[in-house]
């Protein structure tokens, strides 16, 4: 697909016959082989899924596109099917009857039930089409004379392909009728004469000359042909000579060769058929002779030396013979033909036994001594094999094989004699017609190349590379046996020569064709080519290998969800109403398989009770599962429950079966509280099994509660929250790139370089670096960009090209001259609405100076032509009636600028998305609506005025506030990009909270890495550090801020990064904090570990209490760090002193991602984990010099007392100093005082005010690795502003009208962007109040315009007059 050309119109999908499971909706519905991935996909284009060539096509010796024609038959397009078959072979009807179809043997349908009846379908299509009606291709004629010797399948096919290339070959046929073995070897009850004759006539119609009764050797020689001017010769002389029996008496009258018998019969020559006949042999010729002889009224006995198993004839032919009364004597060999006066009277036979297998793999017959008998017959037909008659080829310089066949090159089919080619039985030995045709095709190609003098081998190999990347057979593919073709009953067929097989009915054919599994997905039926008016489809596109020279590589390969099919406990794949969370996600989506309607797989009913099972395949050491936690799934399950309730209604019964509820991210905890309020039942449990309940699709979930009771509950549907897994191909990629991975296949990135792999220059981000959710992945993507471009800073912008536009025309006092361009969009608009009528209508609208239609207005050539028209007709306003301005306005606005017009003199009428696409069945009304939309657009366009482009310079300096790990990283990232950075730190040293940390969760020491970072910052020539300084004044906007420091300095800068950190909550008065010296905060314990404090070694017992001051109504958020931090420190204590009793008192153990392994290790080391409830916190008292903790154990359901010497409190992280900066830079804070980002998912480090970025703890609590990644992300996002010389802003903004404005300031309050200020100035000696708009802050929303009672402010491009004109036009008033 050419993405530049594809307009996303979807005509291709309408005609595509291939229906396969929809990848995007995880197979819940179907899509065509040509498909648009999903409705909002960008680019808005279609794609085609093509896998390897299907086994049928590979197996077919002529490589007919089987899947293609089957799909066309399925669509009822039989003529197209025949054309597709005839791209390869000229005899579709013949093949459809006699081909032994090796393709069917390889058909993958037999893995479901039985192979497809490919041959029968081919015959059906051919029978529906009059071959004479097919068009003759127009080709340039070629002069060279070519001789084709033999008119069998090989010769005919070769001639056919040469004729299509413009040659006019001559066929020389020794017999009186053309067709070779097809004509003289196959009786008419299998292949009616007229079918073959018609197809041969069609070949002659292409300009092939036929000379019958002209035999090689008898009537001409090869040399003679060359002397007559023939430039190339094809030998397709077949094998028409039967092998002699080699037994006494075979010269008697009444002994005949099988091929001769058939030839005489088929040509209507004199044939004396006996009354009692013995046919010797077990091949198809033997059966054909036997069956034909039956029709002459003879009693027929086939004599065959081996068993039925070894018979070379096709099983269906043997069956047919037996049905028609042919007798077969197995394991019998002829010994002698008896005669009486030269006439056959009998056949002496020998009973045989079968010994071991011989070289052909068949059991070897050996005579049984004494077991001889006589068969009384009056005719003996020998059918034990044929060979080519090579007499005419002697002395022609052609070499033959040991088997008496013509030797050729295996690719080109060239013989040893120059200019002579060969194919068919004479080359292969007696074999099937389709093989001969394959030879004919290749020989034709070779002859053409030979005559044109080009390389015979280039691009050619024997056969098709048999890769086997095929469509998976759907698990739910229903078994459906193949259609049985009606045949004449044997009692009738055996007495006449009418065709036995009657062919499929249309119903049968359609049904049979629909059994095809579409192994290749796209069948290359080429139907899409005919309907694609944009010419965007190219079936010849090939996989390309490109070499790119790059400075860095970023790996963002993503993940796949865990496949729970093999976990028998949950019954996924077995019980239809068990879904994976990914499936359920798609079901909930309005763009999903059921348009957002939640329904069960079994009966389509809306479930009223849904259970979610968390941690499926995760947090488990069982075979085929994963030990880590996937981080995102708890929250995803909660979200799905809430959304499902929105879809289904408040009565939805939601139950979530979880182990620990892990919702550590910003604001996720609130979500968790919200869902409880909505009645969701959060059940802490382990699920044992899911089993069906009753026969209506309901499911019973058996689970073990926290207190160890076994409970059952019945649900309408169950959703399995499946985790993230690194796909095998990504693991392979990592191996190829020599990037070491963790045992769970994630990149082990260092804390200070969270997006760097261990290989220099290769970076990674997203789920590949550990399981994570969308916001963090997006953020990491930006971080990786910063890291990857660090070394490339010097090359930045060197490959850019600037677009230059001509000067714009002055339109002062020039009346409007509107040009209207109406798009057909292929058939998308033109196929529904009457485009010429719209163009005509537009010409009649006032001020319209010119109007025309385009096939595709957005195409390159149309653009160029429109520029011409604008100039030629002196147009000064342009209306394009086409698709949506959201996607296409920028293209046309550029075109306007290219024509010397201001880009705001443009308006679009959305007649596709909002008219023809949504009124497809009402062409008249759609046309009327199109006219109205054009009229409305013109009404607005004539009032449009040129707008000034607003351009502001960018001060390419950065301000970073906060000198901790995050701030330092951001400063370094920006300085490395070449920007001057001012780093403002409140204290007299850099490092912040990181100075207190001992190790990261992976166990790496923090100090040396932090020191290295700070050293770089301190020594960087682009970084200016301001110690002991706080920002206390700010003016300006993005690109041009001025910030004042408490030190009196003033800094001008283009952007600001805020990374001022956070601090631990100090729980004064709780848990003996500050009352007992052995009660510490987490960071204090780190310090003690750093100092190798003696107290740690002497302590006999230690405890940790989690969630102190967090996850509470006052602070409804999780710190994200403390579970891992405490577990890590608990392990350190245990390592320091293995005798020490260590307890962790927690509410939910949130060791997310691979941190789960820490939790696992801690339990293995004997650290005791005790869960408590928020409302039942531990009681901490002093008791004889030790600390006594009393806590109600949730498993035992009773209080437990512990005595410890050391208690560490994992307290909340709280913001500090956020409020003043929020005020200064106008950044909203959330209820807990953390900065709010512009968009949680897509703008995770940007403030809603442009040019302001945030990283680290001031944004929300998080581990250091994430803070550092955020800092890098800030540097990357800031770079998108700082790298520009100027910013071009949107001119569609508010403009005050001074004479109307009385300074009431209603608009000042209404403005959501604080872009309007009230000002006073002296006018005519009086104070005049008015408002001023900051063009950088204004987003053009027009809230001011709607608020103003006096028309004192308007939005350019959406003035009251323009909107009013659109209303009037819509109502038909203008």
């Amino acid at each position, binding site marked *: 697909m050419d993405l530049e050309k594809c307009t996303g119109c979807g005509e291709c999908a309408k005609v595509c016959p291939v229906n396969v499971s929809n990848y995007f909706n995880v197979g819940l519905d179907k899509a065509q082989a040509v498909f648009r991935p999903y409705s909002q996909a960008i680019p808005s284009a279609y794609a085609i899924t093509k896998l390897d060539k299907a086994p049928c096509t590979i197996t077919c010796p002529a490589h007919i596109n089987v899947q293609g024609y089957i799909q066309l038959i399925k669509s009822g397009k039989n003529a197209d099917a025949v054309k597709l078959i005839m791209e390869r072979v000229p005899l579709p009807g013949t093949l459809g009857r006699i081909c032994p179809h090796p393709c069917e043997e390889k058909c993958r349908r037999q893995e479901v039930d039985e192979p497809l009846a490919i041959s029968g379908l081919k015959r059906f299509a051919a029978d529906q089409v009059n071959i004479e009606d097919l068009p003759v291709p127009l080709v340039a004629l070629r002069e060279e004379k070519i001789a084709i010797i033999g008119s069998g399948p090989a010769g005919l096919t070769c001639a056919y392909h040469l004729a299509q290339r413009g040659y006019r070959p001559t066929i020389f046929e020794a017999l009186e009728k053309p067709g070779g073995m097809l004509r003289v070897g196959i009786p008419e009850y299998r292949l009616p004469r007229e079918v073959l004759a018609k197809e041969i006539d069609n070949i002659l119609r292409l300009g092939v000359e036929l000379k019958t009764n002209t035999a090689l050797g008898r009537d001409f020689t090869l040399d003679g042909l060359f002397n007559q001017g023939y430039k190339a010769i094809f030998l397709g002389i077949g094998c028409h000579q039967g092998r002699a029996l080699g037994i006494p008496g075979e010269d008697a009258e009444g002994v005949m060769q099988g091929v001769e018998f058939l030839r005489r019969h088929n040509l209507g020559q004199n044939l004396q058929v006996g009354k009692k006949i013995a046919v010797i042999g077990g091949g198809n010729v033997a059966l054909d002779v036997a069956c034909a002889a039956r029709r002459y009224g003879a009693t027929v006995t086939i004599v065959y030396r081996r068993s039925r198993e070894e018979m070379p004839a096709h099983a269906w032919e043997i069956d047919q013979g037996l049905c028609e009364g042919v007798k077969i004597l197995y394991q019998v060999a002829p010994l002698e033909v008896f005669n009486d006066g030269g006439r056959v009277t009998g056949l002496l036979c020998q009973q045989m036994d079968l010994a071991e297998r011989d070289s052909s793999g068949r059991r070897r017959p050996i005579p049984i001594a004494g077991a001889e008998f006589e068969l009384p017959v009056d005719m003996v037909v020998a059918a034990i094999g044929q060979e080519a008659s090579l007499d005419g080829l002697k002395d022609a310089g052609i070499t033959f094989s040991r088997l008496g066949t013509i030797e050729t090159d295996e690719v080109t089919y060239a013989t040893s004699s120059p200019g002579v080619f060969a194919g068919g039985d004479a080359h292969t030995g007696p074999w099937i017609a389709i093989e001969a045709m394959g030879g004919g095709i290749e020989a034709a190609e070779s002859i053409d190349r030979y005559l044109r003098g080009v390389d015979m081998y280039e691009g050619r190999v024997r056969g098709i590379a048999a890769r086997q990347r095929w469509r998976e057979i759907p698990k739910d593919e229903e078994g459906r046996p193949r259609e049985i073709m009606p045949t004449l009953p044997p009692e009738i067929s055996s007495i006449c020569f009418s065709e036995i097989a009657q062919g499929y009915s249309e119903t049968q054919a359609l049904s049979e064709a629909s059994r095809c599994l579409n192994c290749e997905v796209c069948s290359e039926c080429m139907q899409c080519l005919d309907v694609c008016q944009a010419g965007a489809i190219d079936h010849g596109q090939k996989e390309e290998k490109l070499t790119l020279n790059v400075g860095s590589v970023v790996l963002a390969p993503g993940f796949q969800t865990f496949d729970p099919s093999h976990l028998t406990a949950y019954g996924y794949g077995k019980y239809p109403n068990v879904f994976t969370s990914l499936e359920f996600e798609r079901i909930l989506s309005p763009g999903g398989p059921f348009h957002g309607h939640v329904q069960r797989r079994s009966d389509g009913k809306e479930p009223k009770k849904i259970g979610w099972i968390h941690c499926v395949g995760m947090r488990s050491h069982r075979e085929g599962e994963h030990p880590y936690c996937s981080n995102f799934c708890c929250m995803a399950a909660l979200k799905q429950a809430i959304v499902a309730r929105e879809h289904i209604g408040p009565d939805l019964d939601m139950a979530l079966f979880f182990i620990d509820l892990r919702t550590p991210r910003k604001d996720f905890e609130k979500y968790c509280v919200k869902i409880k309020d909505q009645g969701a039942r959060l059940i802490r449990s382990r699920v044992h099994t899911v089993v069906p309940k009753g026969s209506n699709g309901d499911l019973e979930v058996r689970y073990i509660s926290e207190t160890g009771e076994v409970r059952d509950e019945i649900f309408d549907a169950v959703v399995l929250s499946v985790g993230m897994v690194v796909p095998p191909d990504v693991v392979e990629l990592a191996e190829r790139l020599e990037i070491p991975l963790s045992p769970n296949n994630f990149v082990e990135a260092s804390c200070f370089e969270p997006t760097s792999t261990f290989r220099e220059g290769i970076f990674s981000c997203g789920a590949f670096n550990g399981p994570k959710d969308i916001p963090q992945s997006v953020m990491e993507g930006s971080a990786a960009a910063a890291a990857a471009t660090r070394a490339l800073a010097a090359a930045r912008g060197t490959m850019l090209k600037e677009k230059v536009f001509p000067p714009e025309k002055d339109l002062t006092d020039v009346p409007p001259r509107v040009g209207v361009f109406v798009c057909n969009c292929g058939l998308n608009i033109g196929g529904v609405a009457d485009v010429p009528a719209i163009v005509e209508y537009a010409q009649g609208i006032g001020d319209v100076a010119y109007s025309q239609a385009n096939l595709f207005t957005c195409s390159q050539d149309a653009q160029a032509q429109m520029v011409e028209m604008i100039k030629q007709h002196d147009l000064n306003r342009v209306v394009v009636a086409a698709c949506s301005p959201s996607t296409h306005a920028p293209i046309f606005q550029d075109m306007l600028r290219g024509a010397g017009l201001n880009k705001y003199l443009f308006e679009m009428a959305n007649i596709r998305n909002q008219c023809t696409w949504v*009124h*497809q069945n009402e062409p008249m009304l759609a046309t009327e609506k199109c006219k109205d939309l054009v009229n409305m657009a013109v009404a607005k366009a004539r009032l449009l005025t040129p707008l000034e482009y607003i351009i502001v310079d960018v001060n390419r300096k950065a301000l970073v506030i906060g000198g901790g790990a995050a701030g330092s990283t951001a400063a370094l990232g920006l300085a490395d990009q070449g920007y001057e950075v001012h780093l403002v730190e409140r204290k007299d040293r850099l490092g912040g909270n990181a100075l207190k940390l001992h190790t990261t969760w992976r166990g790496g020491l923090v100090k040396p890495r932090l020191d290295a970072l700070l050293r770089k910052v301190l020594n960087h020539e682009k970084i200016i550090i301001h110690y002991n300084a706080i920002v206390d004044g700010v003016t300006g906007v993005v690109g041009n801020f001025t910030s004042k420091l408490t030190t009196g300095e003033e800094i001008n800068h283009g952007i600001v990064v805020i990374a001022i950190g956070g601090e631990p909550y100090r729980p004064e008065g709780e848990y003996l904090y500050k009352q007992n010296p052995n009660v510490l905060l987490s960071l204090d314990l780190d310090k003690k570990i750093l100092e190798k404090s003696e107290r740690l070694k002497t302590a006999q017992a230690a405890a940790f209490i989690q969630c102190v001051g967090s996850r509470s109504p006052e602070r409804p958020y999780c710190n994200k760090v403390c579970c891992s931090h405490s577990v890590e420190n608990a392990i350190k204590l245990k390592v320091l002193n293995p005798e020490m009793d260590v307890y962790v008192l927690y509410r939910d153990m949130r060791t997310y991602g691979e941190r789960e392994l820490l939790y696992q290790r801690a339990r293995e080391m004997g650290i005791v984990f005790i869960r408590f409830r928020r409302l039942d916190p531990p009681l901490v008292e002093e008791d004889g010099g030790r600390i006594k903790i009393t806590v109600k154990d949730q498993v035992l359901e009773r209080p437990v007392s512990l005595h410890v010497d050391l208690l560490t409190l994992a307290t909340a992280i709280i913001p500090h100093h956020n409020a003043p900066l929020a005020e200064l830079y106008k950044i909203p804070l959330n209820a807990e005082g953390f900065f709010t980002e512009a968009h949680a998912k897509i703008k995770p480090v940007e403030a809603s005010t442009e040019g302001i970025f945030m990283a680290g703890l001031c944004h929300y609590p998080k581990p250091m690795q994430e803070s550092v990644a955020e800092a890098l992300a800030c540097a990357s996002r800031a770079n998108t502003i700082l790298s520009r010389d100027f910013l071009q802003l949107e001119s569609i903004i508010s403009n005050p009208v001074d004479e109307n404005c009385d300074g009431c300031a209603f608009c000042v309050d209404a403005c959501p962007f604080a872009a309007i200020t009230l000002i006073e100035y002296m006018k005519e000696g009086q104070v005049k109040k008015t408002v001023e708009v900051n063009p950088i802050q204004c987003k053009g929303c027009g809230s001011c315009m709607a608020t103003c009672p006096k028309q004192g402010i308007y939005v350019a491009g959406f003035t009251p007059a323009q909107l009013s004109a659109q*209303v009037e036009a819509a109502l038909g008033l203008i």
Partner: protein
Amino acid sequence: MEDQYEPRIIAFCCNWCSYAGADLAGVSRIQYPPSARIIRVMCSGMVHPNLVIDALTKGADGVLVCG
């Protein structure tokens, strides 16, 4: 009222949400009656009450402000 009564509806749609939604309805080929005329605005907040009254007085049967 006539049998074939078709109301004339003026719809002011926000460029960022409902106008994009109307585009998506097109992409999804959702069929609806052709009686509405959509006017694109940069925000539904820009639609002055006077504009709505104006449309109704001039003959619109309904006005939809969507954002």
